[in-house]
């Protein structure tokens, strides 16, 4: 599908919201805005009408780089056979406490 960006269209921004102090910012969606200030203000109106956030990050969508789902198998392969990285791999006697 052709993606023709008309000159009049405002740039696209990705919005990330921290829902409360102590938590990570999480992707909420995207929106159009002329600049970063307007993107934050629009994000407040579009994504936090019910106090869903205490902090907003915006980044222009063109700066997001993403891994290729088609290469997922090879990309994550190194982690596949290393079950000894998980605590449940180790058998300890029941009488051992606090471990």
């Amino acid at each position, binding site marked *: *599908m052709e*993606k*023709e*960006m*008309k000159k*009049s*269209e*405002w740039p*696209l921004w990705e919005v990330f919201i921290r829902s409360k102090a102590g938590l990570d910012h999480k992707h909420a*969606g*995207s*929106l*159009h805005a*002329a*600049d970063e200030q*307007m993107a934050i203000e629009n994000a407040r*109106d*579009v994504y936090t*009408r*019910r106090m869903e956030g205490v902090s907003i990050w915006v980044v222009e969508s063109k700066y997001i780089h*993403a891994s*290729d*789902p*088609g290469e997922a198998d090879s990309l994550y392969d190194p982690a596949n056979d290393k079950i000894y990285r998980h605590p449940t791999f180790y058998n300890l006697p029941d009488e051992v406490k606090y471990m």
Partner: protein
Amino acid sequence: MGQSLQEHFDAMIDKDITIEPKDWMPDDYRKTLIRQISQHAHSEIIGMLPEGNWITRAPSLRRKSVLLAKVQDEAGHGLYLYSAAETLGISRDELYDQLHTGKAKYSSIFNYPTLTWADMGAIGWLVDGAAIMNQVPLCRTSYGPYARAMVRVCKEESFHQRQGFEIMLTLSKGTAVQKKLAQDAFNRWWWPSLMMFGPPDAESPHTEQSVRWRIKRFTNDELRQKFVDVTTEQAKVLGLEVPDKDLKWNEERGHYDFGSINWDEFWNVVKGNGPCNKQRLDARKTAWEKGQWVRDAAMAHAEKRKAKAAKAA
């Protein structure tokens, strides 16, 4: 191994694994989603017009604040959905263009006029009620950005329906004139609300494929029946009469039987001949065209600020 892209896609769908924007997908799946999501987004945007008509005439400050918040939510829902559609590779300008040229449709229900304040109650109760019934299953639709947008939409919609029911309840417990207004709004919005679920399954060209792709999770007729069953019970609480003389509980089916829907009217409104089609589209186009200078000015301002910052650095 050696699985084709199509087989891989089909397997993901069968296993109920969500499809994301960068995953390979068949062209028709993409097209169907763009059609459905954009139609939904356009409905939210056009849907602001019939209710916007009553904001300045709301009977109290409370009702006015509520209606404003509801209409603002609808703008928000339109925006969530447009951005979900854009992840499929279509631009916002193209989407607007399809709406403004009449190439894309929006829900026909918004081509009916809002004649009295009671219509705000009937719309919230019936139109939002039908929309919620349609939308809740879409929270598990196969395309990730659409499903996530729908989770937000559904969370917010429930107040829309409740505030509408509250208006109906207040009117139906009020004076004889108020009760009459409520019944009149019910009479006018009932049948168009049933039409919101779309044509009968036998005549719905997209249903089978959409169910296969898990874009749709229930058929039009299944959802319509559920709506009739639930809403008929709610009407009893209001003490209002469902405007259908054929409506009758069917013990054997465990559902209400209901009268036949005037599908000629439905198709006529879809084709552009409803009471308000022209008015709605004109309002939308005028808003877009008259807003052009604002969009241009904002862009010019942003560029000027950027240039200034670059110079200062």
